[in-house]
């Protein structure tokens, strides 16, 4: 299967290791991975802040680029960016042509764990990681894309890793895009409920499917000098600690 990577600007610039890990895992399960270097950002920050014309401009660009990429699927290591692609059609309420193109691209776009679990039917990628881990459901992956069992199944099959559920795994980490800097105090108050639960879980790493949530959670963990590592699912699945 030929997979076109939608890397997301956040992973590209801030967390490239997530992207490299995703490539490694996808290759390991037999995919041919291609990457179109013209891609930048899906426009989610603009869309979520109300800047629709700016978002439209980036969405159109995205659609054009990925229409030209020859691949069986577009895969992204982010639930919220994948969800944004699935929302593209809302940017063209009065333009049937663009709406159709947006929907066609959205149909081919999959979040990383969903692609592995639902498209390929892979449950075990042969990863090794030592220690106890837990999972944070990124909101868009959970509620826009209905991902719940997919990442958990993959984590449970990582050799050496012990999976524990957070009591509030499905509650927001408080990131929310520009919300995190428009209302930083509220954002951090929400975050601290999550951090409290992670602390109690006694884990080595907290895993999630969105780099944005992981920046929020990880940024607070390091600020508090916690030893718990914020880690993307792709990084965990690429790990080979024997």
């Amino acid at each position, binding site marked *: 299967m030929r997979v076109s990577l939608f*890397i997301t*600007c956040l*992973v*590209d*610039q*801030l*967390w*490239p*290791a997530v*992207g490299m890990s995703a*490539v490694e895992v996808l290759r390991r399960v037999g995919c041919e991975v291609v*990457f179109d*270097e*013209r*891609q*930048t*950002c899906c*426009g989610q*920050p*603009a869309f*979520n*802040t*109300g*800047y*629709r014309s*700016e*978002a439209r*401009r*980036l969405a159109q*660009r995205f659609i054009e680029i990925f229409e030209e990429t020859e691949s069986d699927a577009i895969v992204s290591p982010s639930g919220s960016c994948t969800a944004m692609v699935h929302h593209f059609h809302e940017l063209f309420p009065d333009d049937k042509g663009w709406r159709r193109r947006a929907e066609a691209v959205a149909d081919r776009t999959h979040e990383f764990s969903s692609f592995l679990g639902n498209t390929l039917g892979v449950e075990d990628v042969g990863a090794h990681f030592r220690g106890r881990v837990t999972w944070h459901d990124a*909101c*868009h992956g*959970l*509620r826009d894309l209905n991902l719940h069992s997919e990442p958990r199944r993959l984590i449970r099959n990582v050799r050496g890793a012990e999976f524990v559920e957070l009591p509030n795994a499905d*509650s*927001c980490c*408080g*990131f*929310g*895009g*520009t*919300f*995190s*800097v*428009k*209302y*930083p*105090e*509220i*954002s*951090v*108050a*929400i*975050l601290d409920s999550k951090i409290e639960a992670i602390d109690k879980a006694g884990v080595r790493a907290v895993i999630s499917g969105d780099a944005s949530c992981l*920046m*929020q959670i*990880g*940024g*607070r963990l390091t*600020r508090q000098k916690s030893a718990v590592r914020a880690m993307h699912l792709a990084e965990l699945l690429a790990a080979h600690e024997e």
Partner: protein
Amino acid sequence: MNHQSAETFDANARTALADTQLRGALRNLASTIGERRKVALTTVDDWEGLRERARAIKDETLAHLDKYLEAFADNAERAGAQIHWAHDAGEACAIVLRLLRERNATHVVKSKSMATEEIHLNTALEAEGLTPVETDLGEWIIQLAKETPSHIVVPAIHKSKKQIAELFAEKLGIEPTDDVAVLTGVARRILRQRFAEAQVGISGVNFGVAETGTILILENEGNVRLTTSLPKTHIAVMGIEKVIPCFTDLDVFLKLLPRSGTGQSLTAYQSLITGTKRRPEDEGPEEVHIVLMENGRTRMLSHPVTRQSLACIRCGACLNACPVYQQIGGHAYGSVYPGPIGAVITPQLIGLGKTAQLPYASSLCGACREVCPVKIDIPQLLLHLRAEVVEGTANGTAQKLPVKRKIVERLAFSLYAFAWSSPRLYEWGTRIARVLQRPAVRDGRIGKVSTLVAKLMPPLGAWTTWRDARPIAPRSFREQWREQHTRDNRGV
């Protein structure tokens, strides 16, 4: 203390976050009502199916609202009720005031109703020297404390038992006690007297059935039953979106509303009122007046996205599920309707001019949409309103809003859309930032930045005050990819 404005949402929220008593009270909210709700959902077979049916009923009603309202009014009148139409809050208050005056009312009781909160009925009546006594325990507490409700269903959720004990001691002159049975006993004794002397009872409406002209009100304390049956005159204030087509539709909503609102299978009381009493020996009021209130609702109706706001049955589930509400409570929103649904309804009711912060008061996590019994896509509405804030339009009209957006934010998003439309500008821009960030990066992260940097880049300042920031990586993914591929192509 809690008469805050939506204009100062950010400051209100900071005050709320510093209020440890408030946050303690709010912690119970999710763990009590939220958990009870989850259990209550398991007592129906097909929750999703019920939600679908409820929304379909609401959509059908809203698509033909004129027809159903007319039928409701006709049938209610046939049963002996009198219908009054009010365009806005002022008209609705004036109608109620006139009805009270015409009846020489001196004592008025009132049950909990968001519609009357919305039009600030108590304030309007107080100005004329006619203060209705709130009879819902929570509302009565709020009235004693001269506050406003902080939740749609549990209005005094922000108050602790201790605070209520102190309030009762101060206002009612009783011995201070935190024995709940004693406190409620005192409330019961006082309120019974108020019921006995009242000439008029004012209530809200949960559902108005078009087919029969019946109104349904749900409650747990029996105060609605007394308010609507003991006084000679009953006045019900009802938003026009409360109408539903058929009596059998109630079956769906009676399963959804109590479970979503309080986590109960059914409320203790359901008052179905169809006009006035028929025979002298019957119980019930001699006169029933229903004030049908528009107050901005047709504007919501006019747009396919905003129309769903009118499907709301005021259960409060979205408040309980909302991570923002859970932290700051209801008063910070500075509006009658707080929480996620308040953040979408309030700007539509009173305009975005003073409420432009509310649609942004959400992390867009979608927990509200997930619990909503009528499947309102609140995040979609929030995004719709954010676009209106940015574009300066309201409900599709070209009306300019007095919304001052920060010029800097506008510029930043324009620049972003422009530069990131070009892979070259994107790459060079981030490379320059990589160099500029250098002095701030330590151990692979950016700690709290200096005041000067925070002033130059407020988002970075806001982020790093509490969280470390992830710097731009020394080598981006695309650089690493490129390297790997040139290497592969060279056959290494």
